[in-house]
Every structure is written in structure tokens, then in C-alpha cells.
């Protein structure tokens, strides 16, 4: 059997060699499949490392001025503000040693930020230039926590009326629901054996794509899944993503984007990629990952195929559909930019 393969194969290789000279540098690497394909620019950031160092690059957002904001746990400058070409415009923040989650909210025409700090065990609401507006401490009113250290918030999602959902993704995996003033209304999720429970609730977002009341999408990263809940915290269903350690869901237009920290098949070996799901939560493209394949409606196990990311942690989609990828524990690398291929 092997001999036959060998012969078949070597003739194929020969044919390939004859017709196609191998000039890897003449072609851009294209990531992804279908109509979600991208070119990668690993040198997008023009930041001078001596002036604007980063540690883990955790999350990114674009504000209405078109600027790209990066949150890092480097207290020299917790927030770096870029233009879309990668030039540093501004920076701020020294007091967020565990800067992890960054969410933008348009509060009656004024943009504000919510930062989850997993070392301070707090959620901090600030103006776009870093002035603190509100601090949410650990939710002892739930009765689930006896001390701040048990609470390690990773992400927030804000409803149009200002209600705040906080994912305790490195703590006890509860999702806290506060009103706009910071008063706890409800909590749900947590660990357990039922489908409604979570394991590493790393991200949360609101999905408005299907009209009507928005739906909460929560990450259950170690379960390689997203889980959907209504705003009252009632479980709806699971979106299973075998093999993919998905970080937060980010919705832009009809698509849901998520950095995949690593592949389950190669744990802690820099095996991350980026996944893109359509409106029906079907994977349509894996950037630097395996071509999506569904068997009886279920996705095949997904994994990294091209080693261009180490541990991608967040995706930001700008107004021109470019992607920016922030990475955790990846040798202090600045974000990469991905440009759509049309």
C-alpha cells in the first residue's frame, strides 16, 4: 500500500515541480476560507517599544472617531490609541495591572469604556480618555463570594439602557447583571453539570442580529462553546465549537468573530487561530485554522493549520472590515492587522 502511494505521490510531486516554480515570496499568505479571507500584516503597529511597551495585548475596540484602542496589562500605558494605519496617537492608564476586558458603550452620544481588571478584582467605567466614572467591586451581594480574590472579571456587555453584564470568567464563572447605576439585579451561570452552567466564562456580548430583544452570548471557553441566554439570564442553547478555545464573541454586521486562544488538540503550544461564524452560528471561516466542515449539522473538530498567531485573545473589526488581532502571552507582540481579500 505504501509503495503504491509512494509512486503515485512522487509522480505528483514531480509534475508539480515541473509546472510550478516555488517562489513563496511572490504570493501573500491568505488566511481563511470562502468570502472571509484576509491578508496579514504583522508589522501594522508603528509603536516604539521603548516609549509604548505592551505586555499581554488583551482586547481592542474602535471608537467613533475611527481610532483603535488597545488594552494591555502593561501599566506604563494600559491603553494605547492607534490610527488605522498603526500610528500611535495617544496613550493613558497606569493603574490597571490586570487590564483584561475592554468594552465600548455609547452613553447618550458620549463614548465610555468598561475595563475588567482581573488583578484588582474590579470593573472600572471610564471616559474614553481614562477618567474614572464608576468602580464595581466584587459582587458580595450575590452571597457567592466571601472575598474579592474569588472574583476575577474578564468581560462586560452593556445594554442600550446601560445595564451592565459582567462575566467572572477566571473566578466562579457567574454572569452578574447590574443596572446602569451599578446596582446588582441578577446573576446566573456559574459552574456545574447542567448545560446552562459555564466553565471559563471568558467573554460576553449582546447579539442584536435577529431583531427583537437582544440575546446574550457567553463564552464557555474550556467547553469549547458559546452559550446563549436571554437578558433575564435564562439559558437558551449551546453553540458547540469543538477544538476551539474561543475568547469573547465580537459581532459586526452579520458575523460573529472570535479569537481562539488555542486548539484543544495542541494545548499550551501556541496553537491559536481566529474563527468567524455567520448569523446562524455556523462557522464560515477559520483564519490560520482548519477549513470548517459540518457533519450532520455538527462542526468537525477545529485546529490551527498555519502558525501565524500564538495565543490570539481578541478580534476588533474596524469600519472598513479590517481585523486587528491582540495576543496574550505571545512575546509582547503588538497587534496584527488583517485586510480583507475581495
Amino acid at each position, binding site marked *: 500500500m*505504501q509503495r503504491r*502511494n*509512494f509512486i*503515485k*505521490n*512522487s509522480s*505528483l*510531486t514531480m509534475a508539480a515541480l515541473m509546472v*510550478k516554480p*516555488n517562489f*513563496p*515570496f*511572490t*504570493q*501573500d*499568505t491568505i488566511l481563511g476560507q470562502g468570502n472571509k479571507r484576509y491578508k*496579514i500584516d*504583522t508589522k501594522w503597529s508603528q509603536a516604539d517599544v521603548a516609549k509604548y511597551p505592551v505586555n499581554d495585548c488583551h482586547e481592542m475596540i474602535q471608537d467613533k472617531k475611527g481610532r483603535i484602542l488597545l488594552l494591555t496589562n502593561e501599566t506604563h500605558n494600559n491603553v494605547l490609541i492607534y490610527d488605522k494605519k498603526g500610528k500611535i496617537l495617544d496613550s493613558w492608564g497606569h493603574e490597571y495591572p490586570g487590564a483584561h476586558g475592554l468594552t465600548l458603550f455609547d452613553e447618550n452620544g458620549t463614548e465610555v469604556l468598561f475595563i475588567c481588571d482581573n488583578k484588582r478584582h474590579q470593573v472600572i467605567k471610564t471616559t474614553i480618555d481614562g477618567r474614572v466614572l464608576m468602580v464595581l467591586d466584587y459582587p458580595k451581594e450575590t452571597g457567592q463570594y466571601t472575598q474579592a480574590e474569588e472574583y476575577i472579571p474578564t468581560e462586560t456587555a452593556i445594554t442600550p439602557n446601560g445595564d451592565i453584564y459582567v462575566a467572572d470568567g477566571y473566578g466562579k464563572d457567574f454572569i452578574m447583571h447590574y443596572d446602569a447605576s451599578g446596582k446588582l439585579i441578577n446573576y446566573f451561570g456559574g459552574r456545574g453539570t447542567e448545560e446552562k452552567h459555564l466553565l471559563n466564562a471568558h467573554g460576553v456580548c449582546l447579539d442584536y442580529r435577529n431583531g427583537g430583544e437582544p440575546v446574550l452570548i457567553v463564552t464557555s471557553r474550556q467547553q469549547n462553546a458559546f452559550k446563549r441566554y436571554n437578558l433575564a439570564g435564562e439559558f437558551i442553547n449551546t453553540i458547540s465549537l469543538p477544538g476551539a478555545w474561543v475568547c469573547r464573541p465580537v459581532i459586526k454586521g452579520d458575523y460573529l468573530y472570535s479569537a481562539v486562544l488555542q*486548539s484543544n*488538540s*495542541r*494545548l*499550551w*503550544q501556541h*496553537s491559536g487561530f481566529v474563527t468567524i461564524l455567520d448569523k446562524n452560528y455556523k462557522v464560515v471561516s477559520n483564519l490560520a485554522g*482548519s*477549513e470548517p*466542515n459540518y457533519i450532520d449539522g455538527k462542526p*468537525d*473538530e477545529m*485546529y*490551527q*493549520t*498555519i*502558525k*501565524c498567531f500564538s495565543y490570539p485573545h481578541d478580534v476588533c473589526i474596524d469600519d472598513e472590515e479590517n481585523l486587528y488581532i491582540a495576543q496574550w502571552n505571545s512575546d509582547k507582540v503588538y497587534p496584527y492587522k488583517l485586510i480583507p481579500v475581495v
Partner: protein
Amino acid sequence: MKKFLLTIPAFLFFYYCNAQQTFQLAPPMLKYHSVFFKTSEMVLMQFAQPATNIFFTLNGKEPTQNDSHYNKPIEIRKSFTTLKAKVFGDGFLPSETVTVTFIKDGLKIKSVEATQPNEKYPGNGPQTLFDNEGGMSNNQSKNFMGYQTDSVVINVSLEKKQKITAVLLDFLRDHGSWIFLPQSIRVYYFDDTKNEFQFLTGKEINPDSSQQSSATVFEKLNTDKKVVSDKIKIVLKPLSSIPAWHPGKEQHGWMFIDEIKIY
């Protein structure tokens, strides 16, 4: 002509400036039940990236594009078959090589008694060590029994008295998770005539600082003594003091074991 010659460096310079980064392919995805098998083991390989191919060898040599091209599951029947697989694709650096050795069952084991493992890593009890399951480098797997004690004693009873030629032990090495090979392995056999255990074979192991990634490692200890027995005693010493090159220096290392074979 001169003009033409000048265009060559200009051309090269142009290409150099526009050179895109060449990325490496990730290793192929291998799927199999266990590296331990009774009669045969099927191995599936996957790599869902267009215009790439998996090449493999079964002779221990590094795969090249002249070796076997993977196109359907392969069946392993011979013990100690080492499969090496690698992905190649135009415009990419070839992947790292994935290496797996498949190990056939040995003499029939009746029962195993072992030192109680750490409560966090109990495996599935002593049968974990002869269930033909394992060889996967996932330290959360139920295939492993984990120890952080000074000494681990494993008593193996064979179904019948037989000639013993070798003992194989399969361990996890995952230095990032403080899991090391044991610093010493000592194997004894029960000598009926003397009515006591006698030394059969042994090995001392120094932790290897160059081993970064997590992998299962088998240690096969051969003996040329002509021994017939149905009882084997294995004494393992987990690493008592982690070396200075590791962040856990001077602390007690972990030892994870998932299978024993007697030949």
C-alpha cells in the same frame, strides 16, 4: 546589456522589500484510540488546509515529500512502530514532525497493585496501568495516575509463569506542569526457589532541560537474565528535587504513569 544586468539586483531588491513573511504550517492532526494495542491500531490524519499534503514514514526517518503521502487511514500491526508525520505546502515552511510510537500488548497481566496515587490524579485505579489505553500527552486524562511521593511501588501479577525479557513503563513528561520522568526505576522478579524478590533491571534518569513540550515517553528496560516468574515488582522514585533550570527548583516533581507492559 548593462541596463539588463542592473535590473537583476533592482528586481531582487524589489522582491526583498515586498517579501511576505513565510509562515510555518502547524503539525498534522493525528487521531487514534491509544498508542497501546492488542492486534492493530487505526491511525487517521487530518489537515484541513487546501494545497497542503501530509507525508509520513514508519521507519523512524524524518518524512520528506518523497515519502508516503497520506490519503487514507493507516493500520499499525507491528509493535514499536514509530509513525512520523509532517505537513508540506507551497508558500509555507513545512510543519514540525509529529512522532508517535505504537506499542503492542505484552504478556497477559492478571492484576496490578500500586501505591495510592495523589487524590487529584487517581486514573481509573490500578487497572489504568494495563488497560491498553494511553500514550496521549494530556495531563488531565484519566489514563494517568499522578504521584508526588518519594517512592511508588507497583506489583504486577502475570496470568502465568513466563520468561521475562523486558519491562516497559509509559510516563508523561510535561515540565511546564512540573511533571518529570522518575529519577530511578528498579525492577525485581519473584524468585520461587529463594522465595523472595531479586533485582532484574533498573535505570537512573536525569531530567532533560531541552524538553519543552508535553509528551509521553516510554522506558523499555531489557534484561538478559534468564528469568521465569509470574510476579514483578517495580519501584519508582519520582524526582525529589527539581533542578535549578526549572522555576520549581528544589521542589518535589510530579510523576505521571499510564501503562506497564511485560515482555
